[in-house]
């Protein structure tokens, strides 16, 4: 999975894979919490924070690559996905704080299921000509 990093895509590598895995783990944990009628716990918020750090690092990697003159396949879509991506964990955080019930956990679960999809779309929009 990480071998594609050698092909030059800054958003396809260990960091992106880690973000996807972490997001799915947080989603699974939040789902368990929601099913057990539990409000979002500290672990979910820590998970969201770590996920956000990973996504911001991913964004920095992408910007550094851009600074070196590498260009994504679909620049418009790429930046759209990148901006959306870094907004997702804060969105989940704010809504989960507003909803200290099982449904807060359900919100964290839903957003953390969407995040990996956006990461994959981000990788696809980079690779159209670059891959």
């Amino acid at each position: 999975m990480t071998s594609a990093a050698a092909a030059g895509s800054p958003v396809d590598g260990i960091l992106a894979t880690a973000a996807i895995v972490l997001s799915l783990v947080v989603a699974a944990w939040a789902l368990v919490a929601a099913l057990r009628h539990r409000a979002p716990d500290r672990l979910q918020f820590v998970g969201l924070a770590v996920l956000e750090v990973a996504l911001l690092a991913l964004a920095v990697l992408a910007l550094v690559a851009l600074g070196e003159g590498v260009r994504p396949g679909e620049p418009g879509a790429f930046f759209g996905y990148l901006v959306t991506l870094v907004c997702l964990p804060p969105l989940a955080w704010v809504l989960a704080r507003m909803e200290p019930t099982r449904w807060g956990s359900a919100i964290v679960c839903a957003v953390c299921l969407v995040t990996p999809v956006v990461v994959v779309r981000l990788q696809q929009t980079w690779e159209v000509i670059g891959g």
Partner: protein
Amino acid sequence: MAETQVPERTTNRGPGRLLIAVYILFAIAATSRAGLQIATKFDQAPVAYLLSAVAALIYIVAAVGLARAGHAGRRVALACCSVELVGVVAVGILSLADRALFPDETVWSGFGSGYGYIPLVLPILGLYWLWRTRPDASRP
């Protein structure tokens, strides 16, 4: 931060908040998609891209309506969910019947198949939730 047992039937609480979250996600997805399509390649498929923009607008207004949840908010959300349901079914049928009409994907093409059919389920859930939380509902 354990369990809070407040089974209050309010439109913008509990499951309603999850609904709002999903509407926000779709508002972001549809808005950025429509914005990009209209900005970069509007003449390729104007019908599809204008439809994307309309869908985006409906998701935004529906999210706001659900979040405000007052009398007016509920009415706005009801209108949006209804239009959305009609739209996703109509566009779904049209996109299957006449591919040329929507040469490029929209949020509602193929009954929202590009988005895991959530665009089809979302308005139904929205209407159901509005009905469940109607002010005159007899409380159990």
